[in-house]
Structure formats: structure tokens, C-alpha cells
């Protein structure tokens, strides 16, 4: 589903090497944690999969498509295949919960009928069935992240990326989000989550890719945060 071959990313403006000759394969339906200390290159990895940044060298294949050669105009269509949630939720503040989720469907020109049917379904799936009319600033952090998740999956993308999705949440709320991610993964979506939350990684028993200064230090199936290779 996701393949990286000898990917290196050097930021031109400051010369920082964010990824150093990374090769990695993530299969369909996998749940992968990308862990590592701050500055180890996790976010750069996620951004690359969204084509927000381009690799300096190497090849990047998503769903059978080489995205290093993707044209600017084609980026939106890549992003419709790759749902994403962030630490800071990134909801549209002027739209209600319902509209935030519906927006993702309006982009792909779904029919109003389809939107009216699907959005409430997805909202109740993330436990927000009754919050459709609320605005993001009226919600708690956990609720906002649920909205973001609902928006990310409403078009049923094959891949879901999450960059520190629990970073702004208290432990209990964080676990609720993790349960949702696990459900989404159980329904067949490939999930890649960047995090440095040790307890979460240790308890989930999923594949763990550990990064350090831009290189892949360890890659362990059903691993923990500090596992040796």
C-alpha cells in the first residue's frame, strides 16, 4: 500500500536532514506506529505521504502510484485517497460539525442525498451523533479530534494518516481516539500513526517503526516503544 525506497529529505532552507535513506513497506490493512523523539523525522514522513513536501531523492509509491512525479494539479486526488488527522485537529471554525464533515464530500461532488445519509452515519460512528449543529469551538479536544476523524474517513480512503493525534488530549480521551482508530483499521483501512506516546504504543501491540535523526532505527511487529530490534 505504501512503499518508500531509499528516501532522503533534506530541507533546502536550513540543510536539515529529516529523512536519511529510508526504505519501508507498509501493507494493506496494517496498523503502523512511527515513533521517535522530537525532530526524528516523523512529521516529515507523514507530510511526504500527503505530498506536502517532496523527497530530495528516492521513490515513494502509494497504492501502486509513484507520487514523486505527481503533478501539482493531481495532488488533491491523492489527498482524497489519504485521510489525515493532526494534533491540532484543523477543523474549519466557521462551519458546524456537520458541515465540516460534509465539506469533504462536497469536494468530491457527492450528491446532497448521499451527503445527508452518510454524514450522520459517520458522526454517530465516532460518537458525535448529537453534536452535528455545534461549532468546533464549542467542543472539547477529544470531540474535535473525533470530528476530524469523521472528516478523514467519510470518503472511505484506503489510507489514514495520523500525526500525534493524541498529543493534545488527556489520557482517557486519548484512549477513546485510539479505540476509534483501531475500529477504522479493523474495517480494512491502512493506518499510519506518528506519535511519541510510549504507553499507547506499548499497549496496542502493533507494528512499530522507530526513527532516530532521520533513519529507521528499528522496525518491529507487535512491538513496544523501546524494543530492541
Amino acid at each position, binding site marked *: 500500500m505504501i512503499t518508500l525506497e531509499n528516501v532522503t529529505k533534506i530541507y533546502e532552507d536550513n540543510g536539515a536532514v529529516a529523512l536519511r535513506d529510508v526504505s519501508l513497506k507498509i501493507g494493506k490493512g496494517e496498523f503502523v506506529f512511527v515513533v521517535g523523539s522530537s525532530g526524528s523525522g516523523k512529521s516529515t514522513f507523514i507530510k511526504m505521504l500527503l505530498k506536502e513536501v517532496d523527497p530530495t531523492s528516492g521513490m515513494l509509491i502509494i497504492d501502486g502510484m509513484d507520487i514523486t512525479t505527481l503533478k501539482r494539479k493531481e495532488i488533491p486526488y491523492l489527498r*482524497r485517497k489519504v485521510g489525515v488527522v493532526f494534533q491540532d485537529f*484543523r477543523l474549519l471554525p466557521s462551519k458546524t460539525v456537520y458541515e465540516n464533515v460534509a465539506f469533504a464530500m462536497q469536494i468530491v461532488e457527492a450528491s446532497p442525498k448521499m451527503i445527508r445519509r452518510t454524514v450522520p452515519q459517520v458522526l454517530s460512528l465516532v460518537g458525535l451523533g448529537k453534536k452535528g449543529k455545534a461549532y468546533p469551538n464549542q467542543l472539547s479536544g477529544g470531540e474535535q479530534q473525533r470530528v476530524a476523524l469523521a472528516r478523514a474517513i467519510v470518503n472511505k480512503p484506503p489510507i489514514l494518516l495520523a500525526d500525534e493525534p493524541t498529543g493534545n488530549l488527556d489520557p482517557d480521551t486519548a484512549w477513546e481516539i485510539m479505540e476509534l482508530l483501531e475500529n477504522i483499521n479493523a474495517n480494512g483501512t491502512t493506518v499510519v500513526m506518528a506519535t511519541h506516546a510510549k504507553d499507547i504504543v506499548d499497549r496496542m501491540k502493533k507494528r512499530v517503526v522507530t526513527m532516530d535523526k532521520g533513519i529507521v532505527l528499528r522496525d518491529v511487529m507487535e512491538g513496544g516503544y523501546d524494543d530492541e530490534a
Partner: protein
Amino acid sequence: MKLRTLRYHINEGIRSIFKNGLMSLASIAVVGACIFIVIVSLCMAVNIDYVLEQIEANVGISVMFGEEPDESDIAGIEQQVKQIPHVTEVKYYSKDDALDQAKTMFDADALEGLREDNPLPRSFDIKVDDIANQESVIKELENIRLEFEKTFYTDKQEEPADEQTTDENVQTEETTQPVTNEAGAVVPVVIDSGEATTEAARDTAASAEDIGKEGYVFRGIEKINHLKEITDVLVTINIIVRVCSVILIGILCFISVGIIMNTIKLTVFIRKSEINIMKYVGATDWFIRWPFVIEGIIIGLIGALIPTGICWLVYDRIADFINNTPFIKAIAQLKTAADIFCVVGPVALLIGVLLGAIGSINSLEKHLNV
């Protein structure tokens, strides 16, 4: 784009205008002020043009006759003058007409005593369609004058044709005439009178004294008056006004786009993070642009409608006043509000729409590269 998507964009655009109420008002005010100035300068340009046209139309050419030509001579000349291209009107003033005119002009009945032995000349008042064509008409008049002058001599001459053609094979009437060349053969020569007329007239004149030379006093058409100074000034003013209004409007449009761009840039900047988010969700550039463009167009439209309405009402009053004030209306009339605004109105709306659309598209570009 599907219809439902268009509807979505229009909804978003309108919603955004109300959401950013103060900003929208500011933008409308800026667009309105710019378009107001454009409308005012357009109205001025159109009217100056129009007034000049009227003044030009009143500046004619007058042709004064000497004592010698009789009424049939003058009638003949009138026919010729009417044939000149660009001449729209030829009006004849007899000696009595001239005296009547002078009497009213000077308000002096005492002039009545001159009626028996009237020293005032008979004249034509000639109108030309466009002031730019006056010079060519005057040239034609000079030709007619020369040719006519010539008749005072040729009438008395015997066998004028022989004299005219011996040297240069030029003559005034189209005829076939045998000419003996050096070899002694007789060659028929056909000459068209059209282009050669002037040459012929000068030739004849030269042989019949010095018609047209310095100090010569014309006996037929004594004078051709054409107020060259006034017409030259009018033509210059006309050009200056046209050039200035085009430059002024150009500069204003430029400034307007700049101000609108900055205003919308501010709106866009405020919504920068929103645009970012939309891009993460997979929106295309145009999907993001459309609501902004529609917002810009609506702002531009409202910004154009308000000054158009105000200017229309005010202009209507001004035109009404000027066109009904006795002294001013004698000189020139202004265009009516309806006349002007059936053109200026759509132009203003179009400018508003374009300014809004261009402004919003331009100010967005930078933020779409995520």
C-alpha cells in the same frame, strides 16, 4: 462543475460576505469610491466630447462674394460647393439678409438707410460634418474660387481651347483633339478633365494675368473665412480631453485593483488556515477559489451599483438644470442621464465585477501552494 457545486460556492460566497461583515463593507466602500471616480470622469469625457461636437458644428466656413458675380453665377457655385465631400449644409445670405443680420446684431435701425446702396457682401455659410475635414473642404473651395475667377477672363477670350492645349496638352473639357507631333502625324489625344482641372485653371490664370498671386484681388469670391484659430484650438482640446480621460481611467483602475487586492488579501490571510485545511482534505484550487471569486464579484457588483445609482440621480439633476438654463443651453446641451447611463452603467458594473474577480483570484494565488 456540477450545478450543486456551483450552488455550494454561491452559498459559501454570500455567507462569507456576511461573516466578514465589516471587511465586506470596507471592500464595497473602496470599490464604490473607485468606480465613482471612474463614472465621474467618464461622464465628463463624454460630455466634453459632446459639447465640442456641438461647438464644432456651429463653426462653419463663410464665403463672401464680390460685386461682379450675378445670381446665376452664385447658383452655379452653390451646386459645386454642395458636391464637395463632407459639406453638410450651404446657406445663402443675400445683401438684404446680411443687413438684417447686422441690424439685429448691432440693434441699430439706423443701418436701414444702407438698404438702397448696400455695401455688405452676399455670402454662403457652409457647414462641414467634422471639424477634421474642414481643411480639405477649404482646399476644394480655393479650387472653385480659382476656376470661377478664371471665367472673368476666358469669357472674353476668343478660341481659348487652342491656347490652352498647344504646350502641355491640357484642357478643361473632355474632348478629342488632333495634335500634330514632331513627326507630322496626327494623334488623337483624350484628356480627362477631372484631375487636370487645377493645372488648367492655373495655366489659364497665368496667361490671363496673375490670379492667386500675392496681392491679387479676387473679383468673384472675395474671401473665404474659416476661423482657423478657433477650430484648431477645439481640435486640440478634444484630443487632450480624450487622452487625459483614458489615462485617468487607466490609472484609477490600476489603483482600484491594488486596493481591492489588498482588502481581499487581508480576508484571505485571515482565512489562510482554512484554505490550508481545505487543501489537506483534498480540495482542488478552483474549489477553494470559487467562493472567494463569487464573494469578490458580489462585492464588486454592489460597489458598482451604489455609485452608479447616486451618479445617475445627481447627473440627471445637473443635466436637467443646464439643459434648461436659457443662456447655457444656447451654447451647448449635455447628454441626458438616460443617454449616458445606458452605456456608463453597464461599463461600471462590468468594471466592478472584473475588479472583484481579478482582485480575489490574484490575492489567493500565494496561499494555494500547500
